[in-house]
């Protein structure tokens, strides 16, 4: 009487991968959906919060405007410190169960919101560094052309800040692919959760999680390469002009590729 599963690491892992690949792929799908969506939403949260954090209070502002700016500055600081200073696994349990009575959300939607808000806090600091790397002279030039603060940010500051911070932004995506694994604690059926399920069927932890490790490594390695290619394209002459044009045109190299085919 023997189990059907080979006893050695590679044989056992291969058997488990072949037999239970639908469960693994379902987990991969959810892991990618959550990490990609949350990185994009987190980037927008980061832009918003970073622009609040970097907006300067000028002596010419009215008393009311000063108050509003200070209030939002304080709010942004609390948000950033709160979410960077606590582990995501704690945020997940607290927010999911705490808000469930009011929101009736599913683990998947809760997972996307939690990772987005968590990423937003890190993105805010990444974007802030990107914004601060831009010379003050550009603000002055924009102001002398009659641009509003929002137009200046949108057309001049953000495209350059995003470009300067691109490696760090891409890194957040890779980090999110790995960190979504903590969402298994609220029952999100991402890759780690699915792996634990497979381990529960086959009662073989070492072999199951070897498969999981290889899948995670494949995902992060592939995405790191893709991000590197995008980064090189941005640095190439075709990527120049980024600072002077609006966002969609700044990715003109992507459009060019599409146009050739």
């Amino acid at each position, binding site marked *: 009487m*023997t189990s059907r599963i080979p006893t050695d690491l590679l044989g056992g892992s291969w058997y488990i991968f072949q037999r239970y690949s639908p469960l693994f792929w*379902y987990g991969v799908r959810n892991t990618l959906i959550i990490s990609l969506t949350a990185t*994009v*939403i987190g980037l927008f949260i980061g832009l918003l919060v970073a622009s609040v954090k970097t907006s300067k209070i000028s002596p010419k502002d009215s008393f009311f405007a000063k108050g509003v700016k200070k209030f939002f500055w304080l709010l942004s600081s609390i948000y950033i410190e709160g979410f960077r200073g606590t582990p995501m696994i704690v945020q997940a349990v607290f927010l999911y169960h705490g808000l469930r009575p009011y929101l009736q959300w599913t683990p*998947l*939607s809760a997972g996307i919101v939690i990772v987005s808000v968590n990423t937003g806090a890190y993105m805010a600091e990444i974007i802030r560094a990107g914004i601060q790397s831009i010379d003050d002279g550009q603000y002055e030039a924009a102001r002398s052309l009659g641009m509003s603060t929002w137009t200046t940010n949108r057309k001049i500051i953000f495209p350059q800040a995003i470009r300067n911070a691109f490696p760090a932004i891409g890194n957040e995506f890779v980090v999110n692919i790995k960190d979504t694994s903590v969402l298994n604690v609220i029952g999100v059926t991402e890759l780690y959760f699915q792996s634990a*399920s497979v381990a*529960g069927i086959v*009662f073989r932890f070492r072999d199951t999680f070897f498969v999981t490790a290889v899948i995670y490594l494949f995902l992060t390695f592939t995405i790191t390469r893709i991000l590197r290619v995008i980064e090189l394209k941005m640095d190439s002459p075709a990527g120049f002009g980024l600072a002077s044009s609006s966002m969609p045109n700044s990715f003109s190299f992507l459009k060019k590729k599409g146009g050739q085919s």
Partner: protein
Amino acid sequence: MNKFLLASMASLLLLAGCSSNIDSENQIVVGLECDYAPFNWTQIESSDTAVAISGSIGYCDGYDITMATAIAEGLGKELIVKKIAWEGLEAALSSKEIDMIVAGMTDTAERRERVSFSDPYYASDMVLIVRNDSPFMSATSLAQFSGAKVVAQRGTFHNDLVPQIPQVVHMTPLTSFPLLANAVISGESDAMVSERPVAISIVNMNPQLAIVDFAEGFGFETDVEETTVSVAIRQSDTELRTQINAILAGISDETRNLWMADALSRQPEGIE
């Protein structure tokens, strides 16, 4: 920029629309781990007895599913299965994500403060699982496990039984049965606490493990209600409780044992 904004708005709207719609008139939602064979497990193929897991991939089968199907039939409702981690089951019940827990859960005084229980739907006894090359293999009483490293599942009464062994090394409890089995296989623990049907499943899948059972009076001292499992429902659902009890009363002990034997033989990855 606008396209990005639109796309993110759209995805947020999608998220908002994600909340599940359960038709409580015609459906009954059961929550379980699908990770506690032979009471419940996950499989990728459909079968006559397995039920598709709602909102995920795969099917759930096992003794609990057979019982939940019988309850749903008795109520005249369609059975919806949700896969939820053990720690999240009671929260899911109170937030009305599920209507009942049929997950090999034991009726305890502590749990009864938060949920209400039906009459038992299975009775079992407690055993220990050891490696088959272990010196504890030949033990016939709990006293012979003196000095052994023993582990049990966190948040269960199994864990409260461990101190009954004299001079026991009570290992930090773990969250799931596969993890417990792994701890014994790796030698981190000498023995794990389990109910008999679950122990049979684990030993079937791990030939290097064996069951040590005890004659009457030499094993764990348990209250009768501790070694039974019941259906958990919300305290407010008194009518549902009456209905479930009436259905359970119609299922004899012979039928229950037969269903458990069937569940044990249906398990995926069992020995050939």
